[in-house]
Each structure stands twice: as structure tokens, then as C-alpha cells.
């Protein structure tokens, strides 16, 4: 709370002079106005802060309201049904949820080790003059809009994969027992794997920059102590830096995962938009966001629209949980850094 009246130097001086002059009356008016303005400004800023909270609750309420018809019709079955048939008005979210989870998993599987290695390079090996340019370049990668990844993925990356990586996977891993079904089928170019790889490139900067930040926050004394007993650079990173920064790294990984789960345009271009669950990662599939982006404007009928909004609600709930967990972990490490 703010003290209501604080006598200023001028007040005291006037009291000493005694008597109420015209100037003092004007002063009082001006002060009243300032006080009013002060209170108004405070309340306006407070209202804006509440506004941010309202936005989030608004999103949740609107999505629930919009998805009620679909949820009422299909109930819990919506989550576990594999059907998606606009003609018979039969909708199930399972293929989209499956595609979202698998593409994100592929992305994290690649982006996390690579991101950690880049952070390792930036904090321990990189010459200082190179540190900033590389850091900025990695962050520019994060700034490239997702539609650019999409158009690049469809016209440059997918044909490249179709001719190189995918036939290679089919000919090698496709013959290994147990995992062979994962790499079955023809090389389409587009599909789950391609979407996952593009997501990996998109998520990489997030994982890298947060890992770098938490690596840098490790106290120098700890590292020096490890070096002084003869540890190699790798051993210092593996046994001192990583354990110390673990919570922050997990937070950064979850933040990247949140991005990957909700990423829309890049995935929409290369996923193939097929509502089915295939064992093979080379097959086309779909994700929640790609389904919404592809079908929402063409959706005819309330139930179809509502089913798509319900998909949006599922996506929002999943990302909310992941992002909340990420923020909680990052908050913990920030508190420790102080």
C-alpha cells in the first residue's frame, strides 16, 4: 500500500510561513489531481495484469463451450476412437493424438542430445569471440517462422529424404527383426518421420539456449575444483555441470516439447493428413494441430466443427500440463541461482 499523504519539502516550508496563500490552494488542487492520476494509473495497470489471467481462462472456457456438442455425443470414446469420418459424422481423436505424440517424441529424441552437445560446445569449448555469433545464429533459427519450415520441408527436405534417408532406413533397419515394422512401406517422403525431423530442427534452438543458460549458471568454483583433481573437460561436464543443471535442462526440454506438441504449420505441410495409425514411421499420419489447420475452414456442420474444437481443447490441456511442469522446474533453478 502507498502512504496516502506524504508531506513534501514544500509542505513543510509553507507551514513554517504560516497562513494559506493562493499558491497553496492551487498547489492543493494540483496535488489532488496528481493523487487521482496516481490511483487511476495503479488501477489500470492492475486491471491489465488481471486481463492476462482473464485471457487464459477465456481460452479454456471458450474451448470447453465449443467442444461440448462433440464431447456429449461421443463421450470418453472420443479419446480412444480411431474413426474420423466427416460423412457419417463419426469422430475420434486417437490418430491425431498418436501422431502428435510420436512426432514430438522423434523430435525430442534428436533435439535433446544435439542441443545439449551444442550447449556444451558454447559454454566449455567455444572461443569467447565466437560465442555470441553462434548463440545469435542458433536463436535466429528459433525466429524463422514455422511456415518457412513447412514450405522448405515440403519442397526441399521431403524429396531429399525420399531419395536418401528413407530408402536407406528401409534397406537396413527395415530388415532388423522386432523394429522392422517401424520402417515398413514405401518411401513417401512426407509422413510421421519427416514431420518429426523438422520438429527436431525447430525445437533445437529452444533446448540449446536454455541448456546454455543453465550451464553458464553453474558456479565456476565447482568446475575448477573438478579440473584441479585432474578431470577432463568431458568429465567435468558429465559429472559436475550436468548434475548441477539437471532440473533446468529438464525444464528447457519440456519447454521445447511444449513447442513441438503445438507446432502447426510446419507439420501440416509434411505430415500427409491421413487419419490412421500406422506402425511405420514412414507412413503419412496426422497431428492434432495439422487436423485443425487442414479441416477447420472446410468443416461443415456443428458436430464436425465441435469435434475439431475438442481436438484443440485436448492439445491445449496437454501443452498446458507440459509447459506448467517446465515453468515449475525452471522457477526452481532460478530460485537456486538467486
Amino acid at each position: 500500500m502507498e502512504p496516502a499523504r506524504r508531506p513534501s519539502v514544500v509542505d513543510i516550508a509553507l507551514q513554517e510561513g504560516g497562513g494559506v496563500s493562493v499558491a497553496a490552494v492551487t498547489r492543493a488542487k494540483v496535488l489532488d489531481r496528481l493523487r487521482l492520476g496516481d490511483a487511476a494509473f495503479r488501477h489500470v495497470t492492475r486491471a491489465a495484469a488481471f486481463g492476462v489471467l482473464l485471457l487464459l481462462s477465456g481460452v479454456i472456457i471458450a474451448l470447453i463451450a465449443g467442444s461440448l456438442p462433440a464431447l456429449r455425443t461421443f463421450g470418453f470414446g472420443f479419446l480412444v476412437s480411431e474413426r474420423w469420418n466427416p460423412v457419417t459424422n463419426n469422430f475420434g481423436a486417437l490418430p491425431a493424438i498418436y501422431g502428435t505424440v510420436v512426432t514430438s517424441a522423434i523430435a525430442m529424441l534428436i533435439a535433446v542430445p544435439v542441443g545439449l552437445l551444442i550447449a556444451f560446445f558454447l559454454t566449455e569449448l567455444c572461443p569467447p569471440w565466437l560465442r555470441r555469433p553462434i548463440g545469435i545464429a542458433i536463436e535466429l533459427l528459433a525466429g524463422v517462422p514455422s511456415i518457412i519450415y513447412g514450405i522448405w520441408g515440403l519442397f526441399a527436405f521431403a524429396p531429399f529424404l525420399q531419395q536418401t534417408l528413407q530408402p536407406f532406413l528401409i534397406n537396413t533397419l527395415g530388415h532388423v527383426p522386432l523394429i522392422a515394422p517401424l520402417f515398413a512401406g514405401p518411401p513417401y517422403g512426407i509422413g510421421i518421420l519427416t514431420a518429426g525431423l523438422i520438429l527436431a530442427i525447430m525445437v533445437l534452438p529452444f533446448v540449446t539456449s536454455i541448456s546454455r543458460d543453465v550451464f553458464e549458471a553453474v558456479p565456476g568454483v565447482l568446475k575448477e575444483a573438478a579440473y584441479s583433481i585432474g578431470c577432463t573437460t568431458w568429465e567435468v561436464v558429465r559429472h559436475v555441470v550436468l548434475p548441477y543443471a539437471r532440473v533446468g535442462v529438464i525444464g528447457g526440454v519440456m519447454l521445447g516439447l511444449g513447442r513441438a506438441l503445438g507446432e502447426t504449420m510446419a507439420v501440416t505441410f509434411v505430415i500427409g493428413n491421413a487419419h490412421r495409425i500406422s506402425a511405420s514411421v514412414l507412413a503419412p499420419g496426422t497431428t492434432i494441430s495439422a487436423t485443425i489447420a487442414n479441416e477447420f475452414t472446410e468443416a461443415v456442420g456443428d458436430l464436425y466443427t465441435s469435434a475439431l474444437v475438442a481436438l484443440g481443447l485436448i492439445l491445449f490441456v496437454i501443452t498446458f500440463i507440459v509447459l506448467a511442469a517446465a515453468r515449475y522446474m525452471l522457477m526452481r533453478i532460478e530460485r537456486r541461482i538467486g
Partner: protein
Amino acid sequence: MTARYAARRRRNAVAMALSVGATVFGLGWLVLILGVLLWKGFGGLSPAVFTQMTPPPGSSGGLLNPIIGSLILTALAVAIGTPIGILAGTYMAEYGRYGRLTSVVRFINDILLSAPSIVVGLFIYEVMVAPMGHFSGLAGGVALAMLVIPVVVRTTEDMLTLVPNALREAATSIGLPRSLTITRICYRAARAGMVTGVLLAVARISGETAPLLFTSLNNQFWSTNLNAPMASLPVVIFQFALSPYKDWQSLAWTGALIVTLAVLALSITARALIPSGRQS
């Protein structure tokens, strides 16, 4: 002992090589993407792109209406989002720095910052497009404003927190009211950082497609009517790239090049504005 030492040295060398390799790998994508963009988009770059409307399939044309549309939508989003973001950030840094409301808002804001943008599009569709009965540029602008707010809130709060308390105390000591201390002293001290926040927000929204798909939709023709569907570069790129027509595809590449250059220029400018040593 020496054998073991050699093994440790070897493992260290492998790890270092891997990390250098990973960095080259990571940067390689940036080079590759920009390279393909320049190669495919540069050829189509001509004055016609900036002076002609989007063509029907099979004829030549430009990207004037989506470029103008994108500028209008972005301006609208900044006009709506920036004041709200700055005010909320001001409350968090100046009035309730240690309050409960601030920590809750900060948490929620950070989630909004990385929330899927397509969900924002759905939300605006539900609260604006469906009740109004038609797609509109206004809805697109509001959808983008929802992406501007979290970025601006975050940078405003961070930058105001960095303003030294001595400045506030000095202002108070000469009798300046709190609101004037904030607007005349703190805002000025934090100006560079706050401008950075707005630039970053603009960079973020100028390539956003998902929230526009079912809010502002698209418009084949010249239109500055906020109450009607409005063309925007990202949506046109999306539509043209997925079309079977060669003309449209090449325009999509040119559009993609323009968007990327604009976004990269914005983010580099924004970074250059941050006072050195304060970079997070």
C-alpha cells in the same frame, strides 16, 4: 594407469568432436534453409511483386494485397497488444513486484508465451468470428494481439526490474508522484529494452499463420476493410505453396523469402538494441 588415462583422453576427444559436430549440424540447417529460400525465392523478386495483386491461377501477378494485409494486421495487433502488455508488465514490476497476483500472472503469462498459436485461432473464432457470423481482419488482428501480449509483458517486467531503485528513490525524494516516476523515469530508463520487446513480438507475429487461418482467412482482392476477410502473407504462402500451379508456388517462395528477411531483420535489430551485458 596410462592405458586408463589414454581411454579418458580418448573419451574426452570423442565428446569434444561430437559437440563441435553438433554445432556445425545445428548451424547447417540455418544455412540450408536460408540458402534454399534465397535460391527459390530470389528469382521471383521483382517490382511486380510489390505492385500487383495476387493472380488467379495461370497468370502472373504480385503480392501487394497480402503484404498490405499483413502490415495492417500486424499494426492492429501491436496497437491492441502493446498497451495492455506494457501496463500489465508495469504492474508486475512496479506495484506488485513481490505480490501473489504477480507470481500467478507471471506463471500464466509464461504459459501463454509458448501456448500453441492454433489454439488462439480457435479461441478467437469462438468468441469473435462465430458471433459476428463472418471472418474479418479485425478478428485476425485480435488473434495476433493475443500473441503480442505475453512477449511484451515479459520484456516490460524484466526491463523495469533492471531499473535501479536509486532512480525511483531520487524521483520520490523530489516529490514526484508514483505514476509520474514510472512514466517519466522508469519507462525512459527501460526504453531500449521495452522497444526490443515490441520488435520481438512483431517478429513473432509477422510469420504466424495458424491463428489467421480461421480468423482473417484470406482475400483474393485488394481490401483494407477490417470487417471483411483480409489477405496476409503467411496464409497466402500456405495456400499457394499447397496449390498445384507453378506460378502460385513460385510466388509462395518469393513471399516466404520476404517474410523471412523481414523477421530476421527485426530480430537482429531487436538484439542490437539490448544494452550489452544484459542479454539473458
